């Protein structure tokens, strides 16, 4: 990429972020069971690795929503699709190993092998034929390409249709939500060829790799951290130059950008597709750590939670998205995991497993109302860079444009 030497110096937050990320990853590795003191359990390492993937998709969400002003409620669909694409290879190759391991006296012919794999994988949905979409499942490079191609193509087609007809604002949000719903409903069917509501499972076993989960979890942590770093730098690159100006211009006053001669639709489509691909890559790294994927993961609500993370972290700033995703998902794990102590009010005991959602919902409302800048606004407080309050006039005529009070550099 054409990152000029001055890129990092112009974007000091990138350097800080990369250093923090490297320190974190190294620290976890040194405390892990596989390579270090064994203070951090393998399951927690996996949680941290998954959290890094969620941070990556949060960056994608920040690009499309925080910078470009398109509230997409569909990016978890791309995340899930990415997971499905890699999951197909993982499951196929793993089943293939099992089938080969349990062969009879004769080595199986390719047809026999495929039939046996199909029976293993699809017995649960009552068929034993390998659907056409599994044609490339035996090849890792092909499925890796599909991780990018399938969500990218879906985003391209959907985005082209939606932006071409100038659907904007809440209409677009609802349309993306509908797309996500349609996709998850489609995948819930057994006929979709992806095992219906059973989803794909056993993804934590990497075919051809003898290492145990303790080691694998650390490898995936590194891979996730690496991809997050790459994603962060890419996002910083995209948002830094004139392209970033145009993105923020589209967010604040789409019509004005058009009259400057920029084809707003192409830009939106570009960003939409790019972020879909980033989301898909995040998903492809997430699900091998989660071990299982099913269509429920792609329900529209997941994408809305994504928006919640970015909003709580702070829109329009890359580190805000990362902080939000990491903070909310880790706190959520803590609360829902039953580890949080109950709160005894005397007349009623608050069990956090039951009340965490309520707390999340209400704190989200409060953040939207009182702190549009989210957690990242704290950074401004610390730096003393409070923006002058100019009465909160809109910064553009569009209903979705930023208000002055929430505009940040």
């Amino acid at each position, binding site marked *: 990429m054409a990152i000029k030497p001055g890129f990092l110096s112009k974007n000091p937050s990138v350097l800080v972020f990369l250093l923090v990320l490297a320190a974190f990853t190294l620290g976890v590795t040194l405390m892990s069971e596989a390579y270090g003191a064994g203070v951090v359990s393998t399951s927690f390492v996996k949680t941290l690795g998954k959290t890094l993937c969620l941070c990556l998709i949060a960056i994608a969400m920040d690009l499309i929503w925080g910078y470009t002003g398109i509230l997409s409620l569909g990016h978890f669909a791309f995340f899930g699709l990415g997971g499905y694409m890699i999951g197909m290879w993982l499951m196929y190759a793993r089943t293939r190993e099992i089938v080969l391991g349990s062969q009879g006296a*004769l080595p199986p012919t390719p047809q026999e092998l495929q039939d046996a794999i199909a029976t293993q994988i699809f017995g649960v949905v009552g068929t034993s034929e390998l659907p056409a979409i599994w044609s490339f499942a035996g090849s890792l490079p092909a499925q890796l390409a599909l991780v990018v191609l399938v969500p990218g193509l879906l985003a391209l087609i959907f985005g082209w249709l939606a932006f071409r007809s100038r659907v904007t604002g809440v209409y677009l949000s609802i349309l993306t939500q509908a797309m996500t719903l349609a996709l998850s409903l489609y995948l819930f*069917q057994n006929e979709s060829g992806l095992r219906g509501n059973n989803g794909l499972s056993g993804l934590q076993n990497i075919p051809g790799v003898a290492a145990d989960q303790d080691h694998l979890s650390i490898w995936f942590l590194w891979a996730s951290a690496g991809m997050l770093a790459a994603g962060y730098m890419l996002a910083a690159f995209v948002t830094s130059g004139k392209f970033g100006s145009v993105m923020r211009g589209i967010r604040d006053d789409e019509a004005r950008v058009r009259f400057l001669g920029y084809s707003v639709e192409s830009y939106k489509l570009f960003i939409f597709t790019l972020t879909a691909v980033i989301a898909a890559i995040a998903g492809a790294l997430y699900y091998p750590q989660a071990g299982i994927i099913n269509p429920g993961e792609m329900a529209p609500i997941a994408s809305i939670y994504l928006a919640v993370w970015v909003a709580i972290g702070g829109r329009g700033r890359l580190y805000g998205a990362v902080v939000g995703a990491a903070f909310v998902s880790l706190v959520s794990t803590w609360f829902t995991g039953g580890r949080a102590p109950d709160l005894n009010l005397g007349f009623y005991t608050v069990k956090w497993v039951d009340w965490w*959602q309520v707390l999340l*919902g209400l704190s989200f409302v409060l953040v939207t109302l009182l702190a549009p800048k989210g957690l990242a606004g704290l950074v401004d407080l610390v730096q003393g860079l409070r923006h002058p309050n100019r009465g909160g006039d809109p910064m553009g005529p569009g*209903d*979705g444009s930023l*208000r002055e009070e929430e505009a940040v550099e």
Partner: protein
Amino acid sequence: MRHRFLALTAALCLALPAFAQETPPSAEVSSSEIFAPEAAGEAPALTGLAAVLATYSGDIAKPSRKTIGPVIAEIGAAGEGAPAFLAAWADKRVGQAKDGRFYLIEKTKDGYALTDPVTGAAAGTVPKSELSELKPNAGVRGVIASALVEFQLSDPDPAQRRAALDALARNGAAEHLEPLRASIETEADPAIREQKERLERLLTVRFGTSSEERVAAIEHFNGDLALDVRGALNPIVVITRKVFEGAAEGNVAQVLRVGKDLGEEEAYLLLVEAGLAPARLTASERRAVLEANIDAGAVAGVPIAELDDPAKRNAAYKALVAEGKARAALTEREIGAALAGFTFADVYSETDATVTAAAALALQAIDTKVGVMQAADLGLDALSLASIYFLAAIGLAITFGVMGVINMAHGEFITMGAYTGYVVQLYIADYTTSILVALPLAFLITAGAGVAMERLVIRHLYKRPLETLLATFGISIALQQIFKNIFGTQARPLTSPAWLDGAWMINDVVSISYIRIAIFVLALIFLALFLWVMKRTRLGLEVRAVTQNPSMAASMGINPDRINMLTFGLGSGIAGIAGVAIGLFAKVTSELGSDYIVQSFMTVVVGGVGNIWGTLAGATLIGFLQKTIEWFNPSNTLAAQTYMILFIIAFIQFRPRGIIALKGRAAGD
């Protein structure tokens, strides 16, 4: 042969009542003396059923199909208790006590509870050893059942006759035909007579003796949609696929040409099943043979490691065949030759060709009519779905249209309405009253919640629709969890009043449940109410003013804050009422609302914002669309929803602002 025997039995049944009275009591006395000496002295002369039972106790205890006919006829004519006795006898619920008397019995823990067959009074209990159960064989039971039908069909009580007809309609048999026909003549009730005639024809279709008789009965039903008609006709046209060495025999529906009507694979399988050809060599058989012949790491000279290649496997197998260790696989030519030697045909199991032809024709006519009716039924279904969507979406449309606010918590307001209905039913037992209380109460509660939400949250976020969407989503997840914490995750009952139970059956195909009709009416009421509020009241005028130009409205002395609050209250309140209505037929869980929320959004988006007719059009379009797609693929409602959403995405391409869109500058573009 059998028919003739039954006819005879029936004739006897009719003729015997008079004869029964004249039966000499001698046999009865003797049996009584033998088996019940202590009762003999004081016993009055036995009459009626008791007498008959006593007379034929030997035959009854050990009945034979050949001889039991007259006895049954006599029992049947014996008056009080006879039908119950026969029914119990056929059900193996009759026992004979040591004293030779018969009782209706019921097994208890360690014996039998007895009932006197004549009076129906309880007659104490006896231990198991004191009683032997009567176990008539199937043939005897058939005779008993047939006789029972005859008695029941002529029972003086119309209700009994109807019940007998219903039973016959469920499992009529050939032997019922004659008694049924016999009973038609004497039937006085015209409605029952009609029912009997219809049943007679149905039974004739199935069991009639001559083809003319059956064809006539079939033709009589031309275009009749009733399920029982189809139930009678369908078995007649059942076909089986058969192989013949020469020409096809029997009542042939269609001769199948191999390769055109019938695949070669399937045809050959038929041959194999019929034992007319050897099975093909399957892959697994070949594999087994190869495995069985492994010799020093190789099969017929081919190393095992190379046997993952199909060509090598073939070679190895051929070598085994040459060695005589395996049977040869059939060649394509051999299979072709085998198939050429036989005829394949679909053959009716019904042998009478005129009857099958008539039945096929009648079924075709019925199918056409059923198709039309199903379309009508689909239309009704779609209409009711559309009214549900309309009810669910109208509140959303109001807030979205007037205030530009997307309320993601709208679904939870629907849920709130349904739970209100549930809670009201906990306190008010009468379902009609409770629904009448629940409807306004749900409106008040959800409207209150809506106003509170508007005051506390939305008011601060006007002109920031995406933020509103997210804030209301936060409220939505909080509310949903609160519902779960209060009401649990399992479904709560919201019972509709009895007068809403059941369905309006127009015929066997077209029907619609009363609840759905009620929802349709409710939707109409809301449409009228909304139009009245908007067009005829001060509030409506102010709402329209604020919708079109808030700042101008404000300068005219309208308080937009108040209007927004009231609008939001109204929209939320309607959601509550929709919740009660939906809760009547759907499961009331904390996720009730979210099941409808996306469809509601779709309705609003497709219909176009800011116009009630748009919402109506959107709901109608989506309702009909969903039902139509379901019709094409009835087994898969998930697919129907998927395709519907895809259609909507495509639809937005052509009408980005909905069916009824504002144009020009007012659209705010």
